[in-house]
């Protein structure tokens, strides 16, 4: 490197370092998220549900937004870990919820790994089929082995020990919410790290142009297997969180509606910038609350309408609204939110 290129090198280093820096908006988001513990004391149950949904949606974003895999079957991992964590608590195999949570995550990740090879074959349609098929199959299995799983009645008799021996989950949901929020945050940090790593960059390349990715030496299949496994693990953790904080697990964890609602959440929030699942979850829960007040029975109709409307209007236009806002903030703060390229730095 010649002396003349030293400023260029510094420029490149600076750019790459800045790429992953936390923007003020991100920091503000999480401060607000944790502040909700004190801001909304009566709403712990719905907040907790939102946090779980956010983690679940984050898991889907990792594969849809970053790897381009469309899945209708995240519920398989959610449900598997849900039952797994419930069963190991019920039969006293593992008492400490945090350890049980991690084990359940690994169980789901194992399922993800095994099914990833099927998922990666074939077209979008076969992918939909396999992912949907696996989750419906698991639902069938859970239904059949009702001696173990409680069948249609759900898993009964689950008692969850206090977290770290001290924090018991109570009816008001305070401890439950804090637990879920912390787990969400930790998983988010992990996801963020992955996304800004060389591995994360290679995933984006694979999503854009798998042919070229393989032509520059990226082992495409193995990268996809890896992210699919991680995503399954996250979905599993979300499922286990639900079981642990409600001491209950039922067959609807495997349902098509759950996977479909998840897609909706992600579409509302946008994919590919990590916050889509979180923001989408919040909006979805607010929508659900609002619509359920209006028409308690037929809210599925309105959700369907929202989906149809979003697609007709155009996800890009909605996402475009996001992007315009983001671009504005980028110019304002000169920092990154998500993955948009930084505008060219000033020349000396």
């Amino acid at each position, binding site marked *: 490197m010649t002396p003349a290129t030293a400023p260029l090198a510094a420029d490149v280093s600076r750019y790459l370092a800045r790429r992953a820096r936390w923007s003020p908006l991100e920091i503000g988001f999480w401060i607000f998220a944790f502040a909700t513990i004190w801001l909304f004391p009566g709403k712990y149950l719905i907040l907790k549900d939102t946090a779980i949904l956010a983690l679940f949606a984050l898991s889907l974003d990792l594969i849809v937004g970053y790897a381009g895999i469309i899945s209708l079957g995240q519920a398989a991992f959610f449900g598997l870990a849900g039952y797994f964590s419930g069963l190991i608590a019920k039969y006293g195999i593992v008492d400490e919820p945090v350890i049980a949570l991690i084990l359940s995550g690994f169980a789901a990740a194992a399922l993800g790994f095994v099914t990833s090879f099927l998922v990666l074959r074939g*077209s*979008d349609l076969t992918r*939909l089929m396999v992912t949907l098929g696996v989750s419906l199959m698991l639902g069938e299995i859970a239904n059949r082995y009702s001696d173990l799983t409680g069948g249609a009645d759900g898993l009964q008799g689950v008692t969850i020990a206090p977290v770290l021996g001290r924090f018991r989950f109570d009816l008001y949901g305070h401890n439950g919410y804090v637990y879920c929020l912390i787990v969400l945050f930790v998983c988010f940090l992990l996801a963020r790290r992955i996304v800004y790593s060389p591995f994360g960059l290679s995933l984006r390349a694979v999503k854009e142009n798998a042919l070229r990715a393989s032509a520059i030496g990226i082992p495409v299949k193995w990268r996809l297997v890896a992210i699919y496994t991680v995503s399954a693990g996250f979905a599993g953790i979300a499922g286990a969180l639900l079981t642990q904080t409600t001491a209950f697990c039922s067959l609807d964890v495997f349902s098509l509606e759950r996977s479909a609602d998840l897609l909706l959440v992600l579409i509302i929030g946008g994919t590919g910038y990590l916050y889509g699942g979180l923001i989408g979850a919040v909006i979805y829960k607010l929508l659900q609350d609002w619509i359920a007040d209006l028409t308690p029975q037929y809210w599925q*109709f309105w959700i*369907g309408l929202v989906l149809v409307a*979003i697609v007709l209007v155009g996800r890009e236009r909605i996402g475009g609204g996001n992007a315009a806002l983001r671009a504005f903030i980028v110019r304002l703060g000169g920092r990154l939110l998500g993955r948009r390229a930084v505008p060219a730095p000033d020349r000396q």
Partner: protein
Amino acid sequence: MLTILFDGIAYGMLLFVLACGLSVTLGLMNFINLAHGSFAMAGGYCTVVLVNRMGVPFLLGLPIAFLVTALLGGLFERTLYVHVYARSHLDQVLFTIGLVFMSVAAVDYTMGSSQQFVQIPQALQGQFDVYGIGMGKYRLLIIAVCGVLTIALQLILAKTRFGSRLRAAVDDQRVARGLGINVGAVFAITFAFGSGLAGLGGALGAEILGLDPTFPLKYMIYFLIVVTVGGTSSITGPFLASILLGIGDVAGKYYVPTLGAFVIYAIMIVVLIWRPQGLFARSVAR
């Protein structure tokens, strides 16, 4: 055992009639229409209303269900679906799932959530006993109707000009357009026809598959499996796939009751491992 075979064939042919519209849509426009089951449901409920409440004879109710659903399909195609053709598969999935949700809730609201039973004429109840094979009369009707339909479909595809235009458009849309084929019209007609068939299948199948507002959600996976296993480049592919799945499902549930429902899923997974493009698809991947 032959009764099982008979039942399986009947079930398979029913599946075929229900699913073939989906297969053609996917093969023709590369469009994943998850709301296909909603049209089947519409046909079923249409028949229920006609036969149970308005006293229309069952055998007349069937073609009316076909027509009504075909019109509905055509209407939806021109007003809604046409805007979504060029979109990504993800958008198509979302869009059609949204339609499913809306249809399920709408039917629940208007018709209630309980199971519906079509009043089948006396003549179709009970069964014939032929050499020890119990052939349900209703299932016989299904086989007859579906068989005729399948042959008619093959003839239309192979012998008529519309059929050749359709096959051309499935093979290569751009070239077909370049040859002056009005692909949009071909698709509209095909979509309507496929939806009509689904409606007919729903009407016929109410007796065997049951009919309630959750029908599209329950059976979506079966239609998708038929299309995946059978491929989208022919009529015979989904036909054979349906028969295979029908027999597999019925036999599985009879011989291995605890795991019977898995047979269909297991077949799907095995096929997808072995031939990701479907058992009967062309070698050219889409």
